[in-house]
């Protein structure tokens, strides 16, 4: 059993390491008080730049910022489209002109998870492989997202759940104009989890659009 567990973890790590295509190598996390299971890039940008104090569904949000690290760099690039220097100057401009204050800053993924876990309405981000016990993980909707009408949750394979093996699966999903899922390509993640995720996503139905869309979907499996 122990050998099987190690094998599963090794296979999972290898698959993550060889994943290709655009990558969400971060997870957006939130305090359990935050409702909803996804957040858009636009919402994140507005919240982190002080333009909004709540998500679009009205959930109040307190953004938390990392000072440094891979997750911080990825978040800045993928979500805020700013460098760390630009963001710091933006915040200092607010502070020194009396227009706002600095968000809470933390030094590590562990500190981020701990702060978000104990702070009502807090939202933050960590590396994709960080332990996120005590917080919720939100799916990130890219700008090209289409509205999801029917979502089927993937089945968490018993053997992995029992061994507390989790992780994030990244899929490239091709959606037809009528909203059905045409194709799914696994970009990364534990292969067993990825198979479960692919099976579920093939049953998803999106809102119709003018043309076919391809987007990346990230599905977290949280080992508890």
């Amino acid at each position, binding site marked *: 059993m122990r050998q099987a567990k190690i094998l599963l973890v090794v296979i999972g790590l290898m698959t993550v390491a060889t994943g290709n295509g655009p990558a969400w190598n971060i997870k957006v996390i939130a305090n359990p008080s935050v409702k909803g299971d996804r957040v858009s890039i636009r919402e994140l940008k*507005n919240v982190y730049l002080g*333009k*909004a*104090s*709540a998500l679009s569904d009205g959930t*109040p949000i*307190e953004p938390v910022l990392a000072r440094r690290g891979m997750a911080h760099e990825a978040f800045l690039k993928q979500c805020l*489209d700013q*460098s760390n*220097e*630009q963001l*710091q*100057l933006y915040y*200092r*401009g607010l*502070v*020194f*002109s*009396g*227009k*706002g*204050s*600095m968000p*809470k800053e933390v030094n590590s993924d562990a500190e981020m998870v701990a702060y978000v876990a104990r702070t009502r309405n807090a939202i933050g981000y960590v590396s994709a492989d960080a332990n996120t016990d005590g917080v919720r993980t939100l799916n990130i909707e890219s700008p090209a997202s289409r509205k999801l009408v029917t979502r089927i949750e993937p089945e968490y394979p018993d053997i992995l759940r029992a061994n507390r093996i989790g992780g994030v699966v990244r899929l490239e999903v091709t959606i037809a104009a009528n909203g059905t899922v045409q194709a799914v390509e696994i970009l990364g993640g534990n292969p067993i989890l990825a198979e479960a995720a692919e099976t579920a996503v093939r049953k998803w139905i999106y809102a119709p659009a003018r043309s076919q869309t391809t987007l990346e979907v990230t599905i977290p499996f949280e080992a508890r």
Partner: protein
Amino acid sequence: MRFRLTTTLIAILPLLAAGSLVLRAQEIKIAGRPLEVHGSFSQGFMYTNQNNYLTDNTTSGSFGLTDGSLNLNYQIFNKLRVGAQVYDRKIGAIGRGTVQLDWALVDYRMKDWMGFRAGKVKTVLGLYNDTQDSEFLHTWALLPQSIYPVDLRESYIAHTGGDIYGDIPLKKLGTLSYTAYAGQRPNDLTGGYAYALGAYVPTIHVTSYTGLQVGQDVRWATPVSGLLLGASHQSQDVNGKGIMFNWAVLGIPDGSPFREGTVRDFTNQFYVQYQHRKLRIDGEYRRYWRNHSLYFNNATTPFNIASDSRSWYIAGAYRLHKRLEVGAYHSRYYADWNQTHNFRVETFTGSGDPPDNHIFDWTLTARVDLASYWNVKIEGHFMDGYGSPDSVHGFYQPQNPNGFQRTTNLLVVRTGFNF
């Protein structure tokens, strides 16, 4: 070379550096919420090849470019914040090195689309009016002086009154941000205007210079990532008082009262900013229309003086390295747009616009970030023209008693700390 950096200011440098480390290391909390403490300090050196600049003897080199600030910010609860900042500057004869309350306010953000600020509030006008004092926020050692003249800072910097502001999401069309305000402008006795009236002969010692300001700003963060468009408007009703000296030529005895009042005074400003990764491009245009009445020695019939000044600049900056940013701008100031196009042409025999009606400035800058809290800037200005005697844009008669030369090259080296 005059060396004006006082021992007090020298002492501030290590204190700020040490303070930065201490304050970063410790989180001051009141009722479970952090009390933010931030500050800044900058010191500059200016050298001009001809024409003394900014009320100092810059042709000999001058360290008369010093400022600093300290602020407190406290979020009482999610929607309510209080804060205050003190600021001090000494730029040649401007500022006089007296600490002043820069802003102090209560901010209640009822909704994202509507919030209120009350107290002494920094005025939103164009891209950089409310952040012009914080040199560390900018690529430049001196912001484009056509629109952000150091010597007229207090004309726009803040108002004591209130703001209504908000951010309105437009979904796929971006975000619209607005600010509307009304309040009393600072009583400006240490700025360039009061200095100029007090330094020229005949002389007016200004004892009061303030009035009501009302304005609006609208800026649109467009769907094009990094592209911002905006417009600002401000009207003001300024009242000035002073005492007259050396006006014997008009038969006015020393000590006679002087009074000044606005007939019509407005500023319109339009701006654009584009930021893409390491590149930033800014452009701003300002029209300042001023018609004011001057009352000498309790006269009931005033002299009315009107002017229509126009300014614009285009600036580009690129970050070559985490620690190095380079940039350039071209800035144009016309003291009176009508003089440019009408009657002054017949009295000026040179080519183009007369140099006593404009200041054109080509600027090159390198900004080195030695650390996140410490930068050094080296900047070259290549200026044509010196503006009119009442322009209050850097060039003053008392420091240039033999008249002005048409061109001025200015070197600015400035270093700043912030925490």
